[in-house]
Each structure stands twice: as C-alpha cells, then as structure tokens.
C-alpha cells in the first residue's frame, strides 16, 4: 500500500491521528473521492490486525460519501503511522491464563455533526487483545455518564458472547470478567439498585448490565493503569 501511494519515503509519525482533530462534513471537497474511498477500504481491512488505527479509520469512514481535503490528508497521516509500525502484529502469548478482561470508554458528543458519542472497547483474553471496536453510538446521550453507560452495555454484551464461546469449547470461567471503566458515576449507578428520574430513559442498558453482574459474569472496576498498551 505504501508503495502504491508513493509513501515509501515518507517520514513515520508516532500517532495515527492528531488527537485534537475533529472532523466535520463541511470543508473543501476532495477532487478524487474514489481514490480516497479505495484507500480507506484497504485500511478498514487492516484494522483486523492493527487495533491502533481503528478509531481513526472509523472516524474517516463516516465521511466516505463526500471526503474533504482534510480527510484525505488524515489518510496519509495514517499511512505514515503505519510506516513507523510496519512489521508489528498481534502477539498471541502462550504463557497466559484464559481469563477475559475488558476496557471500555466513550467519547461524549464527540461527533460535531450529530453530537452523538463514540463507543470504544478492548477485550483481552489473558494477555492477548482479541477484540476491539470503535463505533459511533446510534442515539444521542444527554450526559457523559449516559454515553459511558451505553458503551458499557455493548461491552458487556460482547463479553457475554465470548463467555458463550468459552462454554462451547469446554473452557471453565472461574471468576467474573473484570471490566475497567473510567467513569465513577457509572459504576455507582450500576451498583445502586434504585432508579432515579434522570436515569429512567436508559433503563434497558441498566438492566442488561445489572443482570450480568448479578449472574456473576462481569464485575466493574475503575481504571488504575495509566496507559493501556495495545501490543
């Protein structure tokens, strides 16, 4: 891909995207949208083995119908990032237990065009990262806690799915899966059995998570590790 785009001699960068960048739909339209779409399509397949670029790609692919110059520049930024990390893959650690762990977060109202929030989660099996996702939520959240909650409930569903898979393979699940969550109020509300007026509208998500906690499938812990390493 790098040689195709003439990026072989480019200088690598250390992050796939400038973290302060926020895309919006307006801007000077890019003259050759097909090229841009092709490149992003290829990068989407790469997210199957390269978790780092998932967010950037997800963000970019929301504007496939009318890419602007700014979007196209970001594609090249990602290619430069990939150049710096070439040869890295996912390491499947053989000396590890088979306990699932998950990390979840959300980015409240971060999409400036729709003000919807973005869910992100990582699921580890032992020391190995096995699933990751970055996705714009399909409803608007009125508070950051609400966005966090929606992300968490998706995360819980995914963990449940892996639990079924482990069951099918005769792998015993010895203790509840730990989900790390960086929002204190979310953890409080999950553990508090009383509903308040302000949380009424996210009842379904609440019940999903509580049920899974009561079944002993998952438990929630605050994030303690300052940096989560991907690879």
């Amino acid at each position, binding site marked *: 891909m790098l040689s195709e785009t003439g990026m072989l001699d480019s200088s690598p960068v250390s992050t796939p995207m400038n973290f302060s960048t926020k895309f919006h739909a307006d801007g000077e339209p890019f003259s050759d949208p097909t090229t841009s779409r092709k490149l992003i399509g290829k990068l989407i397949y790469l997210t*199957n083995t390269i978790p780092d670029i998932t967010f950037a790609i997800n963000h970019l692919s929301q504007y496939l119908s009318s890419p602007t110059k700014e979007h196209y520049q970001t594609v090249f930024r990602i290619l430069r990032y990939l150049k710096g990390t070439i040869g890295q893959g*996912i390491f499947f650690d*053989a000396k590890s237990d088979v306990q699932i762990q998950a990390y979840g977060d959300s980015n409240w109202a971060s999409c400036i065009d729709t003000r919807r929030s973005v869910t992100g989660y990582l699921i580890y*099996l032992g020391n190995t990262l*096995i699933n990751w996702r970055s996705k714009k939520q399909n409803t608007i959240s009125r508070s950051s806690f609400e966005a966090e909650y929606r992300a968490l409930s998706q995360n819980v569903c995914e963990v449940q799915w*892996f639990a079924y*898979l482990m069951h099918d*393979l005769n792998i015993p699940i010895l203790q509840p899966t730990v989900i790390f969550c960086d929002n204190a109020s979310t953890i409080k509300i999950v553990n508090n059995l009383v509903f308040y007026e302000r949380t009424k509208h996210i009842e379904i998500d609440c019940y999903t998570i509580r049920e899974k906690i009561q079944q002993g499938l998952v438990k929630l812990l605050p994030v303690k590790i300052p940096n989560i390493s991907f690879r």
Partner: protein
Amino acid sequence: MSRLSTCFQQVTISIDNNHEPKTYKEVVQDINWKTIMDEELATLAHNKTWTIVDLPTNNNTVGCKWVYKLKHKVDGSMERYKARLVAKGFTQLEGLDFHDTFAPVAKIATVRFILVIAAIRNWKLTQLDVNNAFLHGELDETIYMDIPPGLPNTKLRQVCLLHKSLYGLRQARRQWYAQLASFLLKNNLKSSFVDHSLFIHNMEGKITVLLVYIDDIIHTGDDINNIHNVTLLLNQEFKLKNVGDLTYFLGFEIARSNK
C-alpha cells in the same frame, strides 16, 4: 524493467509471454487448452453435475462460459493450465433460479479467539483447503443452463438441467456451506450457537475444532488422533488439498515460535 530483481524479472517476462485467453473461440484450436477443458467436463460428468434435457417451454436458461487461467510457480515458470466452467450468475432470476444467497462465515473475533486458545493450550493448528468446493453443493432450485461450448453430441434446444452447483451461481457458496455443515453434523460435530461457522467435536473432554470460512478451514484441537480422523473423513467426502500448518488465513500471516 531493469530495476526489478532477477527473480521478479523472470516472473514478469513469463507472465507477459503467456497470454491468458478470454474466449472459447481463441482456444478451440489449441490442444493444451482443449485437453484441459475435456478433463474439466469429465470431472463435471463424473460429479453428475447435470443431465442433458430438452428445454421445457417458458423456462429461463442461465448462461455459462469458460474462464482460462495460467497457474505459475513461485519462480514464474508455468505450472499448469486451468480452465473452469462458470455459470453467469447475473442471468439468474431471483425467486426462480435462486432464493437466498448468503452463507455464514467465521467472525474475525472467533478466529482470533481460536488462535489465542490454540497458543495457550499448545494445540496444533492446521489449515484445510477444499478442492473445487462449490461443485459439491446440491441445488434446491430447478436451474437450466445453456450447453457449455465444447460439449459434444448435443442437439439444438437441449440444455443442462443442473443437479449440483457450479462456480458463478448466486447460491453456490450457500449450498456449499449447507453441504459441509450437514456432513459435519452427521459426523457428530456440533455447530456453535454463537458462531455458526465454528464446528466443535467434543468427546470425553477431548476437543476438536473446525472454523470454516467458505472453503478455507482452520482445524485444531487437543487430540492429534481425532484431528487426523476428521481430516480423513473430510478428505474422503470432499477431497482436500494443501493440508498443512496454518501460515496464511484471509490474508493474515501467522507465525509461531516455541518460546
């Protein structure tokens, strides 16, 4: 050209010299291609893919054509000619010649999950590739196909009534999956509830796992004998090729060390 490495130069030159024909007319005089097409027709006949019938009135026929490929070795030298008869899926009519066309494939998360478990439990990972996979599928619909070019002894207004699926048919991969799944289920493998392309054989705590992505299959488990048995069974039924350690799957390179 001169900037390419010698090895790569050879490949480019040989690909350049060996032109891949596009139509039946181009190859009908060429003995190499003729032999290979006759072989393919013989395989299809052996497979009982169709019977020749008179076309009933008011029926749609599906077109077909030959696709020609030259297979090269790694060093660029010619390996063999390949001719495949394909149906023109776009001439099929929905609701008549085909209904559903989707086939379940392995979720990427399942693939990673199985790889991690195999790494932790030190299971041997093998890869199975099914030869002419799509030709095994049985058809639910009545499909009439035009007589393929090169088929001897046919009269006007005769067509092929298809019994088995062909490459190019809209439902080919679905019918192949159905065929494989029913075979595996018959042989005591269970399809996983959370991913229907994951088949598990569980006997007295010994586990064998098959993960199916159309005609690419990952095969692993904790009992070498059992893995071997399942491979033999599959080989008898479908003819496998390239059975070996898992190195490439869906374009992912998989490397393993003993540390």
